[in-house]
């Protein structure tokens, strides 16, 4: 099962490597990992999606990550009501005769066209993973040139910030 973990860490060089290294060393599988700055300048938030076989494995990941001195807090967002987003940019073939079809698809998905060339378009979409998967699937017929995705970021709906919550 996939779990989404929010990992708050000290904003120091090497911390991301340390975390990804720890997870791979213990033979756990990372589905996606994203890192970015937060409301506090000395804190980075890493969103980690791990695919685990059972709860014991998840417990080990959380406990081992928790041992790292630079890890401030770990929250399992799978267990709480949260908003999950991925950002994707998709470059497709868009010759003039197909352009209106693509524009329709983009509208249906509430995506955005962010660049147009005589032969191609770049479409931007933020949303849950399966929505992006669905758009990619539909666009396949038009010929996808390349896709770039950020990996998941997630935020709980609760009024309490992850850094202030009680969990671990």
């Amino acid at each position, binding site marked *: 099962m996939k779990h989404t973990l929010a990992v708050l*860490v*000290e904003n120091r*060089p*090497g911390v991301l*490597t*340390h975390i990804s*290294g*720890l997870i791979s*060393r213990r033979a756990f599988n990372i589905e996606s990992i994203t890192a970015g700055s937060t409301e506090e300048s000395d804190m980075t938030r890493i969103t980690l999606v791990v695919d685990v076989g059972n709860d*014991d494995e998840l*417990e*080990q990941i959380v*406990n*081992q990550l*928790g*041992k*790292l*001195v*630079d*890890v*401030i*807090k770990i929250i399992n967002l799978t267990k709480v009501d949260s908003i999950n987003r991925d950002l994707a940019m998709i470059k497709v073939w868009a010759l003039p005769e197909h352009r209106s079809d693509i524009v329709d698809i983009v509208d249906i998905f509430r995506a955005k066209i962010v660049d147009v060339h005589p032969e191609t378009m770049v479409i931007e979409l933020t949303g849950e993973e399966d929505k992006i998967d669905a758009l990619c699937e539909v666009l396949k017929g038009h010929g996808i040139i390349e896709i770039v995705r950020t990996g998941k970021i997630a935020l709980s709906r609760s009024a309490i910030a992850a850094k202030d919550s009680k969990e671990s």
Partner: protein
Amino acid sequence: MTGAQAVVAGLKAEGVELVFGYPGGAALNLYDALYDSGITHILARHEQGAAHAADGYARSTGKVGVCLATSGPGATNLVTGIATANMDSVPMVFITSQVGTSLIGKDSFQEADITGITTPITKHNFLVKRPQDLMKTVKEAFYIARTGRPGPVLIDIPKDITGMEGDFTYPESINLRGYHPLFEGDPSKIEELAAAIKKAKKPMVFVGGGLRIAGAWSEFASFIEKTGIPVVSSLMGLGCFPADHELYLGMLGMHGTYTANQSVTQCDLLIGIGVRFDDRVTGLVSKFAPEALIVHMDIDPAEINKNVRTDIKILGDLKWSLPLLSQMAEPGDIAAWQKQVLAWKQERPLRFEENGDVIKPQSVVKAISDITEGSAFLVTDVGQHQMWAAQYYNSKKPRRFITSGGLGTMGYGLPAAIGAQLGNPDETVWAIAGDGGIMMNIQEIATAVEHQLPIKVVVINNQGLGMVRQWQRIFYDQRYSCSRYGTETDLAKVAEAFGAKGIKVQEPGELIPALQEANNYCGPVFIDVLVCDQENVLPMVPAGAPIDQMIGG
């Protein structure tokens, strides 16, 4: 004050009196600051020797071991010593020098990314890029190394940072947002355990290195006196409970005693105290203590459920939990169980066949155990002799059986004995090594001679790699691939060449007089004992088998 002087001042503020190390170009500022600092520096002959010596010092004293090295190859030579300390939770601070900040990342002369290299084998590490961070880093490093579950911490300092002038003050407090070692856990869990103890018919206690690290052996002894529960130990826990105590059943696991392995397999309550359920202990995990309710007492939350499923977890320092447990626990009705385990102990002791013609390696360990009455510091290397030492050295005092358990580092014994002797100048230190392991850091005899340390090194010489041969004998149809040396080295002469006393023992009758001579000799002494090369460490549980399926014993 220079950055280097600030580091040295930090060491002094942490109470460091002795450091081990090896200088080099990038470390010159640091070494210059050490020169008239009052801190004693022990110059090893190889950085790995320095690391193991600092480790032996730390394990035998309970203080933080400190080790210095220069950049690049100096730092990478520490890696085995760091990994050894990490696996056995030894409090250590490693200070490495780095090339100047303007040279970092340019493959400069003697540059290695040592923080990158040691990330998976340190509790934490630092690269100091600003002189104003030096003292704070030293303070944090010592705090992290010695608190919670101890471990090695590395500080890498570029040469120019150690040369910069500044006003340095040692910080009074520490603020690490992500590091909060837990001392007190949840007392209700201890109540739960007390209830389980009352109910159990066949309880067992399994102690490990965590008890030694916590220094909670007297609290542990009162708990056992009160409840009468039999005790088995891991390799790292040897000496925490006196080997001659009636309720002590010996070591558990691959080379454990019949009694220990049977008792744990049949028990209905297993209380693991400061252990990590290593695979050398559990054998086939699904058959490990299959009938038992499993309790795990540890300071490290990540150890719970790592290898063995736990029914009751008691997190916290053993100095906190054991007194509380002693207070709450009431003995259950376990007379029949005690009788059973003591009968096994009587009927199936560890044994080996004496032979008048050749020296049996076990008899060497037994003789040392008798001469020292189980009270000396006994440092081992890694291999067959290590297991015989664990089996036949009746260690009666905690912190005195010093061995590389987790990593199994050959070459550990001699330098670690140097560290143990320097940390305990008035005590007797024996080292037992094999002829394989001693060769891996043999240059450290020079360090022992330089400081005239009265270490007694006994090489159990079976002319090759005994443990490798044992596995080849049992599991590889006696195909002895690369486990015999093509030349014979006269180790006694090697020792003499370094300036130690060398004794060669070839006949059974020479053994006891030689050991006694060594015991009375004031200075480093090496005894090369040629033993029977056919001997196996028994009993033995094949890797991955259940622990009650033993070969021999």
